[in-house]
């Protein structure tokens, strides 16, 4: 056999504690010895200063944590509600369904807008990914993925490709062909490979790089052309469920939320976790940046949405109501950041006043969970995808003569 170049004992009795364990080959004063990992750690720690033990290090960690909380509190001199008192109150919001996109055979899991403000890509449980012109409600492209539960999809900034993935643990990029008859699946490009399901994907500022989040607890940055892993981000202790890229000037960070109830902010270049927020009581299903990039909102299974400020390094607002008992699956801001749209598992969409913290409207219409929600790039409307197999594009309805009743009537909250 080839690599028996060096005989290395990998398992057996440890030279120090004589227990049968996986062994490591060490050199002490030029003598090769075999220690198990525990004995090696103990030996290494003999350099510990007197009084220091692993226990004391843990205690140090706790006191630091408390100190951190104190520092954060010191700078918290006012609540958002107080500051928002002088803001103008919002009038009634009347959002009507303007388009209903029917065509998926099963639950719609994810959707994304194209930069041209009218096209949408959506993916569903049955493995179909459809590109719609939402304005005319025509289907433009359809791809059948070789996997079910396509949980993530994204439109490329140029509008020339889409990315999607799910239970296949991969993220694939499909260039959108102009020839309608051409089989899109033939041009498919596998970009990302994770060891568990893909929960979210997004293109960074160009078509050339993709950021993915996965159930294996990591997020990763990939080069589309070569499929190479450019950077990986470790730090969540459970599945990463969502991510969002920052609209900041330097464009170098993104936030991810996971089943470990934490929302982490990462630096794209170094892979470091630069900030962390853990005030949620349950899985974080969706995170979205505030338009200025100074804050982000999160939606969680604990039925609340929260706003976290990055400069103050704390949670600044909670959007919740006793009557809302179901988890929130998706959030997005309106263009000015004044409104927060959130889709819930009780089939409704709640619209919150970001500054005052109050609910402005509650929208009905879907017949099953709202799984994903996005405001269009120019803010003219927002689209919600649901487990009832449809997507709805909604916009304000101000006294236009058309009042045709249908399933999608809106009520005021």
């Amino acid at each position, binding site marked *: 056999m*080839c690599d028996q170049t060096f005989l290395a004992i990998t398992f057996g009795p440890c030279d120090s504690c004589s227990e049968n364990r996986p062994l490591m080959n060490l050199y002490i004063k030029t003598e090769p010895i075999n220690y198990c990992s525990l004995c090696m750690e103990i030996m290494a720690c003999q350099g510990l200063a007197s009084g220091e033990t692993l226990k004391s290090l843990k205690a140090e*960690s706790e006191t630091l944590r408390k100190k951190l909380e104190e520092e954060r509190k010191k700078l918290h001199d*006012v609540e958002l509600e107080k500051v928002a008192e002088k*803001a103008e109150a919002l009038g009634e919001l009347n959002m009507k369904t303007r388009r209903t996109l029917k065509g998926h055979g099963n639950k719609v899991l994810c959707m994304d807008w194209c930069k041209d403000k009218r096209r949408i890509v959506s993916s569903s449980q049955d493995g179909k990914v459809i590109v719609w012109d939402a304005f005319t409600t025509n289907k433009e492209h359809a791809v059948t993925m070789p996997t079910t539960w396509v949980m993530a999809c994204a439109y490329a900034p140029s509008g020339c490709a889409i990315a999607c993935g799910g239970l296949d643990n991969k993220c694939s990029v499909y260039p959108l062909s102009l020839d309608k008859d051409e089989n899109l699946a033939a041009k498919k490009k596998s970009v990302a490979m994770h060891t568990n399901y893909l929960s979210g994907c997004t293109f960074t500022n160009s078509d050339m790089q993709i950021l993915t989040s996965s159930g294996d607890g990591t997020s990763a940055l990939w080069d589309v052309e*070569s499929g190479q892993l450019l*950077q990986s981000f470790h730090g969540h202790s459970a599945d990463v469920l969502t991510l969002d890229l920052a609209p900041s000037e330097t464009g170098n960070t993104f936030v991810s939320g996971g089943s470990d109830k934490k929302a982490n902010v990462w630096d794209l270049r170094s892979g470091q976790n630069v900030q962390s927020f853990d005030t949620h009581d349950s899985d974080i299903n969706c995170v979205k940046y505030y338009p200025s990039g100074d804050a982000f909102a999160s939606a969680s299974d604990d039925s609340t949405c929260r706003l976290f400020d990055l400069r103050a*390094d*704390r949670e600044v607002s909670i959007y919740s109501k006793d009557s809302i008992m179901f988890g929130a699956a998706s959030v997005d801001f309106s*263009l*000015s950041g004044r409104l927060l749209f959130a889709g819930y598992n009780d089939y409704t969409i709640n619209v919150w006043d970001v500054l005052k913290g109050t609910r402005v409207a509650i929208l009905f219409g879907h017949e099953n969970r709202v799984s994903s929600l996005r405001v269009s790039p120019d803010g003219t409307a927002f689209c919600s995808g649901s487990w009832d197999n449809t997507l709805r594009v909604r916009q304000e309805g101000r006294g236009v003569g058309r009042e045709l009743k249908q399933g999608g009537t809106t009520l005021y909250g």
Partner: protein
Amino acid sequence: MERVIVAMQDPDMGMKMRNQRLLITVIPHAMTGNDVIEWLIQKYNITEEEARHLGGLLVQYGYIYPLREPRSLLLRSDDSPYRFQTPYFWTSSRWPATELDYAIYLAKKNIRKQGELVDYEKENYSILHKRINHTWDFVVMQAREQLRASKQRRKADRIVLECQEQAYWLINKPCVNMPLYYHYTTLGRNRVKSSICLESFMKYSEQYLHHDPIMSGCLPSNPWISDDTSHWTINTDMVGIPTRLRVERWSFSFMELLNDSMGRREFMIYLEKEFSAENLCFWVACEDLRHGESSKIILKVEEVYKNFLAPGAARWVNIDSKTMERTLEGIKRPHRFIMDDAQMHIYFLMKKDSYPRNLTSRTPTLAIVPQETKKSVFPFMRRQRHSSPSPAMVTQATEDDGKAKGAGPTGTSSTTNSQI
């Protein structure tokens, strides 16, 4: 997976090993990527695509590692040499990759050759140094001992060992993020008072209030309500005259100006008058480098150096000497983010200097304020909803997508769509 590997190494039915050349040393017992794929196809009777996929997985999980370009964990179907990873380093063996081992590995690398550590390795090294500082003497001692022992091996063996280790650590990087270190850094972070942060939200919402179609409507009408796409047509990238709202947004922040292609063009014209256009050109070139194809990175870095940084360059940009020095040093090992420091310097230069002056001194841009569309007299008339060309087509064609204009009310057009 290991069954496959063992079968591959079977002396009779397994793969043909050869002595492969790596630079000048001959490496025994190596095979080419092509061999791997061919053997898989033959043995398991599968297609080439499947063999490539399976082979790729073997590399990703660390059972086979490439000798050239060890960082790229891909299986190339050409004559690039590969080797089997020794069972010592197999992922399945219950050997936990502890931080201690990783620290020893990094220390060895550092001692062996200064500057050998890559960016993320350097950071991991310093994090580990802080965290397990109490064991550092041991780490360095072990690193030295292991290096010394390896010196006593043949050169070929040494290279093999190094490659094996490197491949192992590429895959099994332990997570170097623990509470203690994290808390130290976060305590030291600059935090801003809540009142200031929250005021900024107020200001932002107020500033953008009229630009938010959901809050304030949009002119001439919201396309989703009226089925008239004029709002989109008058706001396309390169329309003749921009709308007033659009021009107003350019004054909100430098980023808004740069993000709008029309705003960028106007700004460029202004800079040309001020003889500082090379700054914007440099910024654009750096963005292209950051977000472009990986294969073109080296080429782009050279271009940027030639055009903007070389002494006597046609469009030399004025960066401070420290940043310039750092950038020039970094160009020797070009990567995607090498121009970041310089780019940021120029960005803030433009933001603090040229941008404000442009705002104040600029003659007002010609802009239109669209009329609000009068509501239809006959509420049940519906406009034809025209489709627009796919963005994929637009990027190829030179003509504008100005086709999506709504026609006038054309009689009762009952639609096939089911809504409203």
